[in-house]
Structures are given as C-alpha cells and as structure tokens.
C-alpha cells in the first residue's frame, strides 16, 4: 500500500539549532538591506509615503469620532475637505480637539451626518464640507456603503490591523501600492519606465496633500471643468422651494446632535475661477446656500465670506495646493473660534 507522506512535518528533524539561527538572522538581514535600498531609491527619486485609503481606514476614524466626547471634530465631505485642510495646522490651532477625517472622495456626505446623529456616543462637532447640490435626496446615500461597512463588518481587530498597517505605510515609501511589483510590471510593460511622481499623497489620518507642481494643472483644470459641466448638465436643478423641502429634512439630525451638546457646521469650501463661475451660475448662492441655516438650524460658513482669501486660488479650480492649505485652515479655524463654535 502506498503511503502519503506528510507535506509539512512528520519528522522530529528540523535541522540543528545553530543552522536555523543562521538561516533566520541571515534572511532577516537580507530583507532589511534590500528594503532599505528600495526605500532610499524611491526617496531619491522624490517619492513620498502614501497610505491606502479604504473602508477599513475610514472605519478606524469613524470609531475615533465616537470616542472623544465633546472634543471630537468630525470632518465630513468629499475630496475638498481632505485636501484643503491641513491636519498639522488644525491640531496646532485646536490642540484639545481630535479631528476625525470621514470624508470620502467623490461622494456626498449626508449619510455620515445621519449616522453620527443616530450615534449617542458622538457628542462633538461636525464640520461638513458640502455644496447646495449635495443636499438633494438622491445624493443622501452617497457614503452609506461606508456607514454600513462600519456597523456590520468592521471589528476592533480589523481596525487595529489597519492602524498598524497605516502606521507603516505612513512612514515607508516602498509600502505604497503605487510602487508594488504588479504596478511596476504594468508600467514597465507599457512604457519601459518607472512610475512618475504623484501629486496626491494620503496620510494615515486620511488627510491628503495635493502638490500641483507635480502634475499638468492645465489638463486637470480642463478635465474638471468638463466634468462639472456634465454633472450640472445631467442633473436638473430643483426649484429653491423643492430644494428647501429637502434641506429641511436634515433639521432633526442637526437638532439631535445639538441636544447632546454637539454642533453641526456646513462649510462651502473654495472653488475659484471658471469653476466658481459655473457653480454660482447653476446654484446661485442667494437662492440656495444662504438659506441652509434657516432651514436646518446648523451654522454655515461660505468661503466667500472668509476674510483674507481674496488671493487664494485653486490651481485646477476645485482644490487647494498643499502649500495653501495651512493658511486656509488657519482662517477657517479663526472663523470657528470667532463664532464660538469651538473654544480652545
């Protein structure tokens, strides 16, 4: 009869102790040397560490938002708040507060606002980056997938795992998926070159930095204008009356957070140049944005009302360069302090 041998272990023989010791030490030293070389190589070419942003990382910060009581500063919205705010400036100007970046690129944020309103553990401040368009009912579920994942699937163990991996990704360039073997092979096959520098990097706290010096700003601007025209062209603008009905539906959520000692602030972040002209033409501020406070009871801040921003320009019309985000953050925090929405 044939014998099927164990494929892992059936023997006491594992090799002598010393040779295993050598094998492990030499193996680990080899790994450290190669990874050190790779890190030095990518940095010498100007690459920076960047973190993979996904539902697990979002869940880490969603849990954080509920963990710091009245000192929690939940940042809702889409890409603008991720790029326009400087985490370092925010932390230095509001040292007692714990910012939790809950924005999701390309999606409207009201599902997260509703979720925070339902969560009695959240008693902090919501800073919600939104446009008048984002208040429409059809966009409310934009980030629901993230909320559902957090409540149904995210576990403490997964969040710990994500924290640890983000911590490393935040510090080591070679861990960036953009520089992983599969990506390198694609790039090499397509153009015979190594990946170029990216203008966007993401930190473990989910804030992002855009360096428009590393990209073709003109192409980006044209692409964005084309996109915004398409969006506005495909989506009929409701009458101010219809829109007001939709906005009024948020009042209970705002009130609920307020009753727990929290606050909700809707913020219109900068768009400039042609982009702003199209925004204003399609959704006139006086007919839409300026009515939000009266309809919901929430505080509102419009970038056009902030002093000292006259010379600030979004390079591609819709987001700030990382060199401008500290100044903008300082001005925004100044407004929050002035209105006593936050207190140091």
């Amino acid at each position, binding site marked *: 009869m044939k*014998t*099927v*041998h*164990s*494929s*892992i*272990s*059936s*023997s006491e*023989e*594992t*090799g*002598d*102790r010393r*040779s*295993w*010791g*050598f*094998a*492990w*030490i*030499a*193996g*680990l030293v*080899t*790994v450290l040397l*190669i*990874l050190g070389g790779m890190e030095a190589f990518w940095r010498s070419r100007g690459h920076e560490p960047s973190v*993979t942003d*996904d539902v*697990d990382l979002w869940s880490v910060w969603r849990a954080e938002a509920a963990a710091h009581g009245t000192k929690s500063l939940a940042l809702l919205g889409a890409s603008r708040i991720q790029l326009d705010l400087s985490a370092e400036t925010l932390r230095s100007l509001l040292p007692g507060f714990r910012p939790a970046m809950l924005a999701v690129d390309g999606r409207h944020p009201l599902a997260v606002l509703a979720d925070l309103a339902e969560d009695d553990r959240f008693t902090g401040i919501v800073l919600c980056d939104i446009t008048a368009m984002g208040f429409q009912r059809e966009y409310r579920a934009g980030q629901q997938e993230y909320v559902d994942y957090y409540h*149904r699937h995210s*576990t*403490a*163990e997964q969040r*710990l*795992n*994500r924290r640890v*991996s983000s911590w490393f990704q935040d510090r080591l360039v*070679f*861990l960036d998926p953009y520089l*992983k*073997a*599969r990506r390198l*092979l*694609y790039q090499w*096959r397509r153009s015979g070159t190594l990946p170029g520098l990216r203008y966007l990097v993401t930190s473990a706290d989910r804030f992002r930095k855009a360096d428009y010096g590393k990209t073709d700003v003109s192409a980006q601007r044209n692409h964005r204008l084309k996109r915004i025209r398409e969006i506005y062209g495909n989506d009929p603008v409701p009458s101010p009356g219809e829109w007001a009905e939709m906005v009024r539906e948020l009042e209970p959520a705002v009130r609920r957070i307020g009753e727990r000692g929290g606050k909700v602030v809707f913020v219109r972040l900068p768009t400039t140049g042609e982009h702003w002209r199209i925004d204003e033409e399609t959704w006139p501020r006086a007919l839409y944005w300026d009515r939000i406070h009266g309809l919901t009871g929430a505080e509102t801040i419009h970038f056009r009302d902030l002093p000292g921003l006259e010379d600030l320009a979004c390079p591609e019309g819709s987001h700030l360069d990382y060199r401008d985000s500290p100044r903008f953050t300082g001005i925004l925090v100044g407004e929050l302090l002035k209105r006593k929405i936050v207190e140091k």
Partner: protein
Amino acid sequence: MGSYVFYGAWNPLFLPLIWISTLTDWFVGARIAALEDRAAKWRVLLVSLTVNLGLLGFFKYGGFILKNAGSALAPFGFPSDYPFPDIILPVGISFYTFQTLSYSLDIYRGTGRPWRSLLDYSLYVAFFPQLVAGPIVRAFYFLPQLLNPTKVRLNDVAWGGFLFLLGLFEKVALADGIFAPAADGVFDGPGVPGTVQAWCGTLAFTGQIFCDFAGYSTCAIGIARCFGFRLPVNFRMPYAAAGFSDFWKRWHVSLSTWLRDYLYISLGGNRKGPWRTLGNILITMLLGGLWHGASWTFVAWGGLHGLFLILERAVKKVVPPDSFWRGPWMTVPLGLATFVAVAAAWVFFRARSFDRAFEILGSLLGLGGPATLAALPPVSAGLVWAAVLIILMTHGVMRNRDLETAAAKTPWWGRSLVIAGMILAMILFSGEDRAFIYFQF
C-alpha cells in the same frame, strides 16, 4: 483565556456559542461513558448532535433552508417568503462544532475516554491557532499533548516560525496578490470570457483557494508548533494527486477524514453492497459540499467530486491492478488529468450562480460564444500562469516528500534565501486586504 480573547476580538457576542458547544460535549462525553446501555448512550449522543448541528444549522443554514422551503411550498399555495434575521455567521462555527462532535462520537464508539480536565478540554475546542479555520483537530490527538507541560524549544520556534511565514506568503503574495485579482476579474466581471481567459480565471481560483486555505492551515500549524503543540497536516501537495481518492487524501485532510470516519462509515461505508457504497460516497460528498456554505453551487461542487470518485471506482474495477494503465509512468498524465478536473469543479465553488458557472464552463470548453468580457491585463494573466506552473511543479516534486525533512537537509543559506524571498514577495506582491476564504465556512 488567550484563545477566548482572540475570538472575542472579532465578536465577543459569539463567545457563548463556543461555551455552549464546549460544555455540551464535555457533559455528554462524561455521561455516555458512565452509561452501559447502548440505547441510552445514543439518546445522550443525540443531545450533542442536536445542540451542535442545531447551532450550525441555525446560524449557517437557517436563511437557506427557509428560502428553499418557500420556493418548494409556493406551488402548493403556501407563502413563498419566510423572513430570516440577517445574522452574521459566527467565524469558525463549522470547525469547532465538528471538533466537539468528534469528541462525543469517539467516546460513543469507545475509541476515546472522557477527559478529566474541563480546562484542557476548553483549550482543545478554542485553541486559537486553528479555532477559526481549522485544521479540524481530533480531541484524542490534541488532548494527550496537554498531559505533560509543553516545552518551547528553539527548534520548534524556528520551524513553527518558518511554517507561519510560509502560510502568510501563500496567503498574502500568492492568493491575494497574484490569484485573487484575476479570479475576481473573470468570475465577477460583466460578460462572457474567452476560452483562454476562462482557463486563466479558473486556474487563478484553483491557485487562490489552495494558497488561501493551505496558507491558513500552515500558519495555524506553525503558531501551534511555536508553542510546542502539534496539529495534524491538512494539505499534502493536493495538486499532485493522481486520481480523486488520492486528491481527497491530500486536500483538507482533517475534513475529509472527519467525513469519512463519522459520516461515510456511519452510513455503512462500503460494507452494504456496491450500490449503497456509491450512494454513501455521493451523500458524503454532497454534505461535504454543503458544509462549505449555504448554497446549491457548493452542493453541486461536492456532488461533482462524488461523481468523480464513483467514476474512479468504476474504472479501477475494470482496469486490473497489474495493467499498463496503473504503472508508475501514468502518475504524471493522471495527475494532470486530475488537476484539470479538480480545477473545472472549482468553477461551481467560485461562481456566484449556476448561470455564471455554466457560462464559465462553456467558455472552458470553447462553447461560450464570442468573448464579451474585457481581457485580463497581460501582466496579471502572466503572473497567474507562472504561479500555477510553479505550484504544480512544487507539488509534483514534493509529492511524496516531507517538507520538514527537506528543510532540514537544505543548507542554512538556502533556508535564509527562502525566508528572505518569501518576506520580500509578501511586501512586493501584496494586494488588497482580504479575509481568509474559509473564514466564511
């Protein structure tokens, strides 16, 4: 305690289920041993069967049963929709209920005696390395290891660490980094794949399911070894199997032997005539398929393997043992034929529906019509073909060899190169974070 903390970190609400299963079989085992009367023992055993299979049935198959009951009863005028709460499947329930059941069944059959220490027995059920995804360890394999205080030896730590690293490498670099994107692209993509693409996706999943599951088992065995414990081998180079009975001696061995010992043999095995034997094989494989998940596609996968085994028995009856066709030169062609059939059967395991499974099978046979699915990136497809080839060659070479002995015979610098290579591959090829596939079972 450590094992409970490990499990509770996922979801502490399901810890009581482990405790219920543990205590039930602990008391059932003691009671069965204390009784003389066979019928009385059977009645006590029924308690264990009811509690364990009841828990498993409710959490894993409750929605499936009600949905199918609704479909079956609808033509007779009964309501077709029976709502079932949307409950998360407790991780590892399929594994630890089979472990506790095996304890009571062994005592019932007289092949084991009740264990004195409840603490030891609780550790056996909840031992963290294998709690959530196997191997399914038999009580009387593990418990005797607790009789003497375990000594952590440096060699065990070095070898256990190596196995842990190997398992992680299989999971992170191969299953998630190389195979999963291609398998997802073909099975979940919109459109009909071409023949080559269908084979690429099927082979990708063939590689993924092995590296994912064997990867977890190897990690579990490695961690246990670091603590001085031995766990049974779960995979023995299965893609080098020459024939389907050989495959099931190599694939998920702890489950296949469990099903053989407690289900197939309980049904009568091969003792009740040729037709009952074939029926028993088929029932065992169908239920083995269902164990993997509450879906008819898993049942179809199990049934297909049942048919393969039946076919193999029929061929063996016709071909005499000293025939040319049973010679050692047949091992390679037979192995490749087995591999192709096993890979094709995985289509039912992976596809989300029968429609999709038949679509992919049609494409595998070149009957799928014009391809409408976007082609896989050449880099992705190339990595899959290369990795599958390497796995096949490794399994072929290591078919009757023992990894531990092979490692011990390798010079230290060779081992260090393997260690470095696996760590680097994990870092460079890692894909997105994915849970182990077998966590859902």
